[in-house]
């Protein structure tokens, strides 16, 4: 039980919540980096390996392009269709193999990344698809390599959409991270569950909730601001 008469009660609340926030930042930050790298690659591949796409024939083989496209599509759909709470449990053996444990903030990175990549990949896909095909053709007519077209045309032109997608992804990851917290992943979810729920403390519960709401507002506004600043359409 918690003791509200303890003179250090509020200091403890603050300490605990800040420690949880630190863990959440760590877990979300690392999985976000991994999500950006892999999600961007998967999203770009999903669009460009389609018929007539920039990488429709990787290494000269259309068959490889089709295979890559189908496999990624199915994987992304799988990742998106499994509810996170189940995905988390499903991944326990894999997490253990990778990190050595399935408890703690570092272990939480694994399911978060695996849920984040397909989510962000779909948003990248949408952003890249919105780039007019005429731009690719113009770059080709200038004699650009595929890599140049990929980086300087497709991704560069999709940056505002990617910024929005990124903020949506951060918000999603923060939400998921709270869920991981409830089963031993640490962070704000852990604080809310152990102190707020199991020890009946509305102070902890509301502290965590308010912090989460603020964080989500902050990241969404940042994303919107960046998208507006980066877009010159």
């Amino acid at each position, binding site marked *: 039980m918690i003791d509200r008469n303890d003179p250090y009660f509020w200091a403890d609340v603050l300490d605990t919540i800040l420690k949880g926030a630190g863990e959440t930042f760590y877990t979300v930050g690392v999985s976000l980096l991994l999500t950006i790298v892999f999600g961007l690659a998967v999203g770009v591949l999903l669009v460009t390996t389609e018929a007539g796409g920039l990488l429709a024939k990787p290494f000269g083989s259309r068959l490889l392009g089709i295979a890559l496209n189908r496999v990624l599509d199915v994987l992304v759909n799988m990742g998106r269709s499994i509810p996170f709470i189940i995905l988390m449990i499903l991944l326990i053996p894999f997490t253990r193999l990778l990190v050595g444990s399935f408890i703690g903030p570092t272990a939480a990175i694994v399911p978060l990344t695996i849920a984040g990549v397909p989510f962000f990949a779909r948003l990248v896909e949408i952003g890249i698809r919105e780039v*007019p095909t*005429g*731009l690719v*053709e*113009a*770059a*080709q*007519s*200038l*004699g*650009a*390599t595929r890599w*140049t077209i990929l980086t*300087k*045309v497709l991704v*560069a*032109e999709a*940056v*505002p959409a990617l910024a929005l997608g990124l903020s949506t992804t951060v918000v999603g990851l923060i939400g998921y991270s709270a869920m991981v917290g409830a089963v031993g992943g640490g962070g704000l979810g852990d604080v809310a569950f152990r102190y707020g729920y199991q020890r009946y403390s509305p102070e902890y519960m509301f502290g965590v909730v308010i912090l989460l709401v603020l964080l989500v507002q902050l990241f969404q506004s940042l994303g919107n601001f960046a998208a507006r600043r*980066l*877009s*010159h*359409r």
Partner: protein
Amino acid sequence: MLTLTLERGEIFGVVGQSGAGKSTLIRTINSLEQPDSGSVHVAGRDMTSLAGAELRQARHDIGMIFQHFNLLSSRTVRANVELSLEITGAGRSERRRRALEILELVGLQGKAAAYPAQLSGGQKQRVGIARALASNPTVLLSYEATSALDPETTRQILDLIRQLSKDLGLTVLLITHEMDVVKRICDSAAVMSEGRILEQGPVEKLLTTEKSLLGQALFPLGEIPETSGSVVEITFTGIPTDRPVIAQLARQHGLDVGILGAAVETIHGRQTGRTRLELPGDEGTVAAAVADLRSQGLFVEAIK
């Protein structure tokens, strides 16, 4: 199957309705599309046999401009032009220098820091032209480049292309469905339909060729009405104000000449006109009248 040959430094227009195969034609020139058979030679290079780095190298020598400009919205005007130079591998200061130089050439000095969204259609196409020409190509492909522009802007862009072609010795292949483009800047033209070239040659020669489709398209005189007499069409190059051709014809041959239609167009900066006349009278009189007109150096086509 078609054969098309362009002279160095000329402006060649391909006209035809949509679906005629114009876009496929122009896209085979820089190998954006591969022809099933046949070959494309540009400045001595067989484009159809090139791939990879060689093809990209060859494309540096062929600029292309588009109907919808295809500028990168995330880049400024200068950075859009510099893209072309980044691709050819020019250094930073060289890119900057060349971009500003070519922007001045297309009349966009002062717009270097603007984004495409802040420009008018005509200005966007000028950026497109600057980007296409930044790498000093010898050939410019124009893919319906003025089709999204209003008539006045179209005129300005066409004049710019003509000027650049003259100054830089550019060979220009343009495809269009607008006859005005042919009138204004083309030295030669081809008429295309269903994947075939129906006629081609220097514009002025096509105008004085019997049953020329281009001639008919440039001078839309409408349907030939029901008449009792013969119908002929006279094409003037340069309006003969000092010679009252039709009045003389009526007087000397005793013909009650009827004017069924007439059109005057400025082709290549020269006033060119075509008049459709009805010549009532027997065959002998009409033949003599036609011979008379021809002896004055006019192009006369007997319609019926």
